[in-house]
């Protein structure tokens, strides 16, 4: 599941999963409001991993992250921050708020494919136990 306001990025994202030919269902949202509305519907099927862009109109990634972590129903979803920037402040803040991994959007399609396949195949239970600030940012 991906929430990103950028049409190109959504395209890269779905293309990558198509080419990976993994047995995954991908759903994309245009902004934070759309994402939260969906997550708050009654009989929602929660995703395994949510890729969350930080810089979105209406409701940005940080706000979405806070809302999900304060909602018991949604607080267990594995959240991968998926952002253009990798500034210290953003990494620090999302780590403290409880995101599981931080991905800096790659500038090469093949790298993107590799990152996505790596993230989807992470055992979140195991990853979360050993999580610290140093391995929070995914190194490509």
């Amino acid at each position, binding site marked *: 599941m991906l929430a990103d306001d950028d049409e190109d990025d959504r395209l*890269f994202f779905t293309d990558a999963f198509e080419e990976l030919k993994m047995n995954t269902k991908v759903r994309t949202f245009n902004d934070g409001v759309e994402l939260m509305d969906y997550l708050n519907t009654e009989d929602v099927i929660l995703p395994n991993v949510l890729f969350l862009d930080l810089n979105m109109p209406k409701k940005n990634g940080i706000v979405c992250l806070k809302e999900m972590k304060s909602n018991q129903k949604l607080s267990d979803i594995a959240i991968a921050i998926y952002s*253009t920037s990798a*500034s*210290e402040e953003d990494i620090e803040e999302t780590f403290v708020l409880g995101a599981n991994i931080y991905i800096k959007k790659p*500038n*090469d399609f093949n790298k993107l494919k590799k990152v996505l396949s790596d993230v989807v195949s992470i055992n979140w239970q195991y990853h979360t136990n050993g999580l610290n600030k140093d391995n929070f940012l995914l190194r490509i």
Partner: protein
Amino acid sequence: MPRRLLKHSGILLKIIFFTSVFIIIVIGGFAYKQISGLTDSTNVLITTYRINVELEQVTSYLKDAEIGHRNYIVTKDNQYLEPYFNARENVNNSFAILKELTKQNEKQKQNLTELNQLTDKLLTNFSETYDFVENDSTKSEGFKTLFFEEKIIMDSLKKKVAEMIRLEEVLLKERQKEYRDNVKFTPLFFYLVILTTIVLIIIAYFKIINDFTRIKKFNEELLIFKESTSQSEIISKQGNWIWHSEANSFTYSDNLYRLLGEEPQSFNPTINNFLKFVHPEDLDMFKEDLGNMMKDKDLPFINYRIIQKNGNIKHFKTYGKSFYGSDGQKKVLGITTDVTNEIENLITLEERNLELERNNKELSEFNYVASHDLQEPLRKIQTFISRLEEKEAESFSNKGFQYLERIKTAADRMRSLIDDLLQFSRTNKPDKAFVFSDLNELLENAKQDVAETILDKKATITSDVLPSIQAIPFQIQQLFLNLLSNSLKYSREGVSPIITITYSKVKLDDDQRFKDITKIYYHKIVFTDNGIGFEQKYANKIFDLFSRLHNKSNYSGTGVGLAICKKITDNHNGFILAEGKLNQGAVFTVYLPAN
């Protein structure tokens, strides 16, 4: 100092005055005694002469009586008896005088009594001889006997008188000697006394003249001090005032009037007259402070505004401190300063500071946002290029594929420019905390970051043991990384890079190459390489942003890396210097302050 001198001088003058008075009183006493002694001596002298005269007188009377008596015996004429009859009375008168004169002298008193007896005897003898004369029996034996006795008595009398005169002469001699002694010492004594008094007066005179000169000098100094105070008040825009607590009155210095925009001493220095100048908005606060001052006899620094008659508003700062005047009254001495210029300057400075801060922040934000926002479209361009390369490569002509490669290179270059710019703008942020950091560890981390290049280029890096210092760790790591990548990047074709890192602690205080040296000791870390180097004339230029010495098709630098190094050493109050020799290598020296 002058005050103490004058005080001492006062004591000295008092001592001289009282000593003089004492001496003069003593001298007066002595003089009185001397003069009365002289008078006594004179009186004694006179007495002696008078006694002698009286005694001669007595002898003379008795001789007259004797002569009269003899004449009567010869002539039987009664008229010759006259001196005899008078003798008794005259002698008695003389005796009375002599008795009075000799009452002090026992010996003479006794002599006088004996003389009196002899006289009585003589006169009795005279009267006894009358009978013989009446009866004409002068030739009888009885008469002869009496006549002979008369001669004997007369002789005794003369002897007695002579004895008395001699005694008086002896007394007179004694007294004359005494008198001479007295008279001999008196002038000398007076002379000495007058001399002493003159000396004392001279000492007092010089003392007074001396003090007077000194007081004149102090007065002169005081006058100069007063003038300089008045001048300095004008220059420093200060005025002073005194509040006399007991009289509840004020005195203002001339310049205080000037500060209020008035002529000196042009109105009565009362509270109400001053309150007329105070800015209405500050009036309540000022009155409260004034009330507190009258209660506490002290005034802390207060700030207020006044309005001059011409409408100018001035900022005043006032301070007061209590002291005791020479009259023992408690007073408050106040200093009032016109701080209008300072306050206006401060406001301007604050405004400029704020503006500068705003500009700086805007610039930094612009830099950050620009490079950050540029990343997104660039990333997409790069991703699309990678899509084209992979999916559509076969449908391109050779030329098309070449163009694609050129686009890719340009996009990569833009990527590294943006990354470096972002790095540079992050280095700008000054709010990073200094922590105690091990430089060896930071160097090791930097080496890890370029490990791949080290392997590729077969580079050798040797380093001394570095110290631990107060630093911003990620910045120092960035500094090391940039210096290492720089050396690796500008290595000579076909020569394995050798990078040597040496460390020493040095003293920079007399080194002319550095400005703004804040510490004495510095950590000196030197990076030496064997790369392509550069010409020494570019040594300072290479730290400028976007400055490059080499063609970018040969070397892929952006001209930001060394600018970042400069910024980081600046952030640490340190320095960085570059030395180069073309085709031999470069030396970068980093100085970081040691505590």
